[in-house]
């Protein structure tokens, strides 16, 4: 008996040793705890889908994924990144998911120049706009780019002349409101009040009572459990204002939550990097691949933007690893130069990177509809092509607005 155990141990050691010589270790960071758990899980689905389409191989090497969970806080992201980089020795890291985590990882990536960081789906502007890091690549647009065109749409088409915003108090939603304000205020709209609530707020009752009732619409920049709780309590309080959704407010993670709260979102306009029912063949193929890959009770009806984001990041990494034949020597120089020049034919439109390694891509204005099977989805209203990080504004003027914040930028009709 003892000998057999010993043999097994020896065999196992041998197997892992040979496996180590060939596999490529890739770290994956996502919010698998806290208010953004559902989002992180779907991000991981996107990553696994991309890997399974590549047969788990890239550049002739087998990929070994090491997952580390975070809770949307910057320090949890750094802790998780340190674990996979410094303990597990990954050569490539995909993640994180949430805005402030991205900023923290940008700073951490500077201390680990031998590792390449590809952003998961985090969307704070600062991550790539202020003090960018040489080895941090982002194949998704930031929160302001995801707002491109929404302000004009709700002012010109919906006719909302005044709005108030209520959003979580952190970098990603600041960036979203910045993108909204630039378009909306330039079109002639007025933002009368901006209310910021801590990330992870569960009881919104008093905040709902404090909402202004003299505006045409309310912009909701909430996500995950916060969004569900807000909608639930908003209905209980008898709220009936017109709503405008931020990108993760109308994402699949909220639209497929259990219970009636989500129904308040039907008809709500919003914008982001995808529209669930877009009829583009490339997108439809992606949706089908997602649906085929995971059983219905372990996924959303269609991929959320987290899944799309992680899918794109992973696909970009895999295609560049294939191009350089898995060669990560010389400080990953060839691999990184491939990433910088890659034009990614993503399901949600073509994506290329700018000089800060930040995505230039397509934005989608959409409205929430109820599908025949009773599920909710976003339906395409308008496509805004070629959105860059400065939203078409001259970079110097754009930088002059300052880092997005609670009162930045001011709401002015011209800048």
């Amino acid at each position, binding site marked *: 008996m003892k000998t057999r155990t010993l043999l097994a141990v020896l065999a196992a050691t041998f197997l892992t040793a040979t496996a180590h010589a060939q596999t490529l270790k890739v770290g994956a960071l996502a919010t698998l705890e806290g208010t953004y758990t559902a989002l992180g899980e779907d991000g991981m689905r996107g990553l696994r889908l991309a890997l399974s389409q590549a047969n788990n191989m890239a550049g002739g090497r087998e990929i070994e994924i090491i997952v580390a969970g975070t809770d949307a806080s910057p320090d949890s992201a750094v802790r998780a990144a340190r674990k996979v980089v410094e303990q597990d020795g990954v050569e490539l890291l995909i993640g994180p998911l949430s805005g402030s985590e991205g900023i923290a990882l940008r700073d951490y990536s500077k201390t680990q120049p031998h590792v390449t960081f590809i952003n998961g789906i985090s969307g704070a502007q600062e991550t790539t706009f202020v003090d960018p890091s040489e080895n941090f690549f982002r194949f998704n647009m930031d929160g302001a780019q995801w707002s491109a065109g929404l302000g004009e749409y709700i002012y010109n088409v919906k006719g909302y002349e005044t709005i108030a915003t209520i959003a979580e108090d952190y970098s990603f939603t600041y960036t979203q409101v910045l993108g909204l304000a630039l378009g909306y205020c330039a079109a002639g709209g007025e933002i009368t009040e901006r209310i910021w609530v801590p990330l992870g707020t569960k009881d919104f009752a008093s905040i709902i*009572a404090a909402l202004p009732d003299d505006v045409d619409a309310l912009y909701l920049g909430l996500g995950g459990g916060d969004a569900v709780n807000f909608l639930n309590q908003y209905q209980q309080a008898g709220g009936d204002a017109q709503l405008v959704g931020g990108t993760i407010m109308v994402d699949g993670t909220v639209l497929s939550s259990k219970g009636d709260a989500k129904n308040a979102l039907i008809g709500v306009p919003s914008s982001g990097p995808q529209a669930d029912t877009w009829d583009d063949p490339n997108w439809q193929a992606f949706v089908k691949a997602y649906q085929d890959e995971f059983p219905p009770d372990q996924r959303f009806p269609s991929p959320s933007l987290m899944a799309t984001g992680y899918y794109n990041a992973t696909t970009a990494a895999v295609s560049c690893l294939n191009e350089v034949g898995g060669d990560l020597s010389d400080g990953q120089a060839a691999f990184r130069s491939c990433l910088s020049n890659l034009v990614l034919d993503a399901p949600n439109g073509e994506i290329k990177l700018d000089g800060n390694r930040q995505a230039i891509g397509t934005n989608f204005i959409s409205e929430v509809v109820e599908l025949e099977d009773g599920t909710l989805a976003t339906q395409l209203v308008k496509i805004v092509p070629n959105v860059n990080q400065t939203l078409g504004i001259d970079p110097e003027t754009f930088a002059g607005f300052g880092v997005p914040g609670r009162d930045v930028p001011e709401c002015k009709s011209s800048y």
Partner: protein
Amino acid sequence: MVRRFARAHPWWSIWIAVATLVLLYLIFAIWPPWLIALLGKKKLFLNSLFNGITLGSLYFLIASGFTLIFGLMRNVNLAHGSLYMLGGYIGYLVGDLTGYWLLAFPAAFVAVGLFGILLQYFVFRRMEGEDIRQTLVTLGISIVLADIMLWMFGGDFYNISPPSWLSGPMDTFFVTGVKRSSGELIYLKYPLVRIAILIASIVIGVGMWLALNRTRIGMLIRAGVDDRDILSASGIRIQLVFVAVFAFGAGLAGMAGVVGGTFQSIAPGEDIRFLLASLVVVIVGGMGSIPGAALGAVIIGIAEQFGSVYFPTYAVVVTFLIMVLVLAFRPRGLLGRN
């Protein structure tokens, strides 16, 4: 009792009387302009106050079980938040399957109560008197339970829908202002389901107080809190009392899960949040005291709600500030015994 308190603490009595009068004025009077300039709209104030009390009633449901278990068994049950979450999921399933929201409450109470019995019988009974070991084991159980629930229910957000007769707002008799044009009084609208929850927790709280102070089992529990060893030496089967109290406390946490799932939502991570909330409540109110749990819950609930409206940036700090103050001046909690 009131007279005795007034005689013993004349200054305290005056302060309490003045504060009550001011509060009554703030609630019932039509606010003059200077007061609105100072505190904002009355609607906001009243809403925050009532929301604080209803949120406090949810905290009370969880914390009362927590404090009872601690008081009797000296077991700091760090899995209490997991029991809350388990109750929420069970409540959602039962409400969804049967279509009766009210049925979710007894179902969650019984199911989580039974689970509590299993925990007490198979785990905690074996390590009685070893406080640290029990606490660490409860921490381990909470981690395991959280992962099992994540596996079974996924990371989705579960929101238990109240029946239609409880959804939406209702008119109350509190005046929030006067219409400028017609001079008509404007009355406060308030979510019906929160009022129902408030009433239910008051009934449960009073029921618990009566059970503890007027019944034989309550007498046993109080005696056990004071001196466990003497109680068991006098021939009482203390293990039975322990099991009953643990089951009741767990059941209450389960029922609170249904309440929480109705006016907030159930998702991974909620267990830690409510464990932390009940710890803070119990530390502020006093470990082992039911009235203390009620007082602490209302204070923390009101602080959270006023904080989120009047100084949103620092709202998170307020509860912990209260805890620090209480620990500094009354280390055993507001109603804790010295």
